[in-house]
């Protein structure tokens, strides 16, 4: 479904990704872990099309199509979804209106009928229940004035509405208390299907107690230095990253 091959990327001539290769198949959950500054969030942003980053080599394909040639919106419409580590607050932009526009953009892209406000409201209500969000959130401005947990839940709400093929959750567990973590994780689990795949970027093993990964990868210095199953996450929890990480240029 998603294939990353020898991906190199930089920002302001600082090399961050140094040849990442990864294959994600439908139905799989991949966890990417690693120390601060290892390139986890950069990988997520490069896949989603953040123009701050320059891809210097490699390719990323979704169902055989090279997404690096696509603008961010086309990647999103094609099925890429990034749950932001720091969701952006957008004052004045109504959450429901934004979500309906995004939903309809995708419907249109797929040649399906667009939803009118009444139809979309019914869709939205069911998704709100999924992440245990009050209907009031639909009428608030996007992430504006939301608590950290509410922002993360709003990301999962968007994921639920847009039903992506590949969802990249960038430290969705950070800043969440245990109840919020459970709600978010349950929402993600309910969205798992044999037709989609999830890439979980996280520092901590605790999220993986709620969302069982099929694979765990350790990213260090812009490269995947080790891959394994869920037991690798437990080992990382016990031993830290030092045993896997060699100094840069060292």
């Amino acid at each position, binding site marked *: 479904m998603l294939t990353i091959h020898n991906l190199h990327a930089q920002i302001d001539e600082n090399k961050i990704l140094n040849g990442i290769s990864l294959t994600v198949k439908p139905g799989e959950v991949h966890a990417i872990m690693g120390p601060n500054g290892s390139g986890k969030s950069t990988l997520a942003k490069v896949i989603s099309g953040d123009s701050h980053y320059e891809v210097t080599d490699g390719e990323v394909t979704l169902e055989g199509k090279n997404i690096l040639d696509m603008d961010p919106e086309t990647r*999103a419409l094609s099925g890429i979804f990034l749950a932001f580590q720091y969701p*952006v607050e957008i004052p*004045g*932009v109504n959450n429901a209106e*934004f979500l309906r526009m*995004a939903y309809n*953009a*995708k419907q249109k892209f797929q040649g399906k009928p667009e939803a009118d406000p009444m139809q979309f409201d019914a869709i939205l209500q069911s998704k709100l229940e999924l992440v245990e969000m009050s209907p009031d959130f639909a009428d608030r401005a996007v992430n504006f004035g939301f608590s950290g947990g509410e922002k993360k839940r709003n990301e999962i709400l968007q994921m639920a509405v*847009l039903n992506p093929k590949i969802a990249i959750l960038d430290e969705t567990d950070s800043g969440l208390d245990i109840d919020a973590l459970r709600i978010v994780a349950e929402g993600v689990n309910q969205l798992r299907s044999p037709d989609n795949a999830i890439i979980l970027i996280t520092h901590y093993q605790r999220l993986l107690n709620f969302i069982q990964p099929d694979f765990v990868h350790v990213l260090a210095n812009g490269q995947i230095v080790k891959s394994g199953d869920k037991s690798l996450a437990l080992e990382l929890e016990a031993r830290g990253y030092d045993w896997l990480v060699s100094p840069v240029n060292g």
Partner: protein
Amino acid sequence: MMITMNTNLPSDVISGYDHNRQFPAWLGKVRQEAIQHFHKLTLPTKKDEKWKYVDFPSTLVEWPVVEDQAVFNETVISLVAEKIGEIQSESYLVFVNGEYVPQLSRFSPENSRPLSLEIPETFLDMLHSIENEDIFESINTIRFTDGVLVNVDQEQTADLDVIWVTVPSAKEISFHPRNCFKLDKNAALNIRIHSISTGENSYFMNAVSLVEVGNGAKLNLSFFANESDAAIHFSKFFITCAENAVVKVANFNAAVGLSRTEIDVDFLGPNAVAEILGLNYLVRSQTVHQVASVNHVVGECHCEQVVKSILDNESCTDYYSTVNVAVGAQLTVSNQLNQTLMLSDNAESYSRPQLNIDADDVKCGHGATVGQLEPGELFYLKSRGLSEAQGQLLLLKGFSQDVINRVEDPISRSLWTQFLADRLKF
């Protein structure tokens, strides 16, 4: 019929006022005083901070008024009907080229009436002090013919639309409406002033509105400008707030050549609240100046100013606002916020909020931002599948919505929501 001029000053400035109209004697006296004052005045220059960036033709005060015209044709009737349908108004006064047109108007005479032929002498009490008038106020006092007089009685409520329509003229012309809104104790008034034109004609609208908001009274006043790109529109509002008064003034500019709106608010009684809102959506070579002077004469009053602009191409806005807190006006809260989104490298924005505080127990603040659309916000929207254009328009709408949401009058709010929905289509 146009006034023919052979001098640098219009004939009515020299001779007094239009003698063909049956104005009461007291008004003639007022005008004579105004004429004497006028001759002492000069045009404002760049050295005057309030007028620093206002470029207007030096002949502006000489642009003649239209006499005996009552111009209204099918185009005007259709435009007015469209506007009435849009605002669903049940009570409205229509003025064409500055003159009241009863055939197109509908109103309740007990609360409001056109200030044309039957000007009551009580109006004199509301006149701004002539010796303090600047040149444009002075020429309004000298020349005003028609306007709106609204007096809402104690505990009563009124809702009114005022529609100023300007039709093309072969020459530059001017109008000088004088409005008076008086709200007695615990009265409430929603008033919307719409200024529209039927063509791309040059004219000078020079309006002065005197507003008294009594104890516990509540005023919602909205001004909408959707005029000719050749129009010059100066409006001045003098607003006094008594104890517990609530005033909300919203100034919306969609199209006008040069607009200057000056809002003076005087807090004369404690616990009064005022909100001055502005929203400018300018996409051509248009200039809007919003000037405010908020005077906290007494303490324990609250004023919020929020003025936002979206500027494209060679448009320009200038926000000049002064908050004055008098000695002893303790527990004053007064804030100024001016935000501008620049969509073009050629647009200009000037922001000059100022605080003059002579009391020590107050909360006052000012803020100004001028910038472009936030790239991080745009990327966020695009990462959800919205196109660049959709994302930009959604952000513009969101930027404006903050002002619109503050507007209490549902009709005004709906008008601007619809306007933006029409302009910001995807």
